């Protein structure tokens, strides 16, 4: 029996809830990510509208390092006036240019804000 390594990217929750933050006029949600892709070290986070146009947001790092088999929890802040526009929060794997694989797969997971379900 051959055991193949699993290369997985996951982010929860699927339907994050925006809540008031400690800063006036900003809404906050918290996301969790797990990197089970040994070939990926960096992920990029973005917030998008219904048509996947970018919506302004703030987080600690838009592109952050997440080691293999590591978890991270990060907060996303958006302006209260962008609440209606913001539909998706997505994380995308960043493939290194010097990757040795001949074809690579960029994985992207998009959660949807709960009030847009």
């Amino acid at each position: 029996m051959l055991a193949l390594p699993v290369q997985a990217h996951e982010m929860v929750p699927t339907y994050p809830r925006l809540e008031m933050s400690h800063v006036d006029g900003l809404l906050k949600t918290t996301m969790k990510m797990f990197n089970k892709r040994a070939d990926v070290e960096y992920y990029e986070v973005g917030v998008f509208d219904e048509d996947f146009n970018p919506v302004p947001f703030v987080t600690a790092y838009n592109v952050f390092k997440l080691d293999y088999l590591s978890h991270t929890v990060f907060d996303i802040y958006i302006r209260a006036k962008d609440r209606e526009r913001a539909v998706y929060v997505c994380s995308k794997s960043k493939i290194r240019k010097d990757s040795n694989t001949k074809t690579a797969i960029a994985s992207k997971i998009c959660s949807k804000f709960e009030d847009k379900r």
Partner: protein
Amino acid sequence: MFIKKLALTTGLMLVPFATIAAEVPITGTVESRCIIQTSTPGTYGNPNAYTLSTQAADGGDQAVVRFDVSLADAYYAEITPPLAFSSAPNLPDQVSWTGEVSVQSVSDATGMGTYETDKLELGNTDRYTLTATGSTWFAIHSTATMGGNKAFPGGTYTAVAEAVCIAK
């Protein structure tokens, strides 16, 4: 007599072990989620000087990506074959791309049997509605053809397919 003593001694020795045994609860919660697993990254074969292909007949290896979902009818899978090289030597001409995505296998033949026929083709992207919980494996084929029947220069070529899981 000796056997009785031995049994008593053994019994006494076991008491401390019995008393230190305790239940250690391991708890967890399962959140609905979509997980993208890159089962096979894929490789290009070089059947002739001006073609790179992931078809097995061309010496290549298709990329395979697996989607695991734990909530039914809550996600779309969108898969886009490569449309450019992310790294390559200097190319002598334009490259034309063709790609194809198909369901390779499913964990629930009843609930997922219509994924392939129900898919939407949005330009170069194929969209599947993941209506059942479980795993779906998608095969991604890619072919790059150099314009003007010119040869691909020697070197390493990398192209990136994109697999996206979007909450409905």
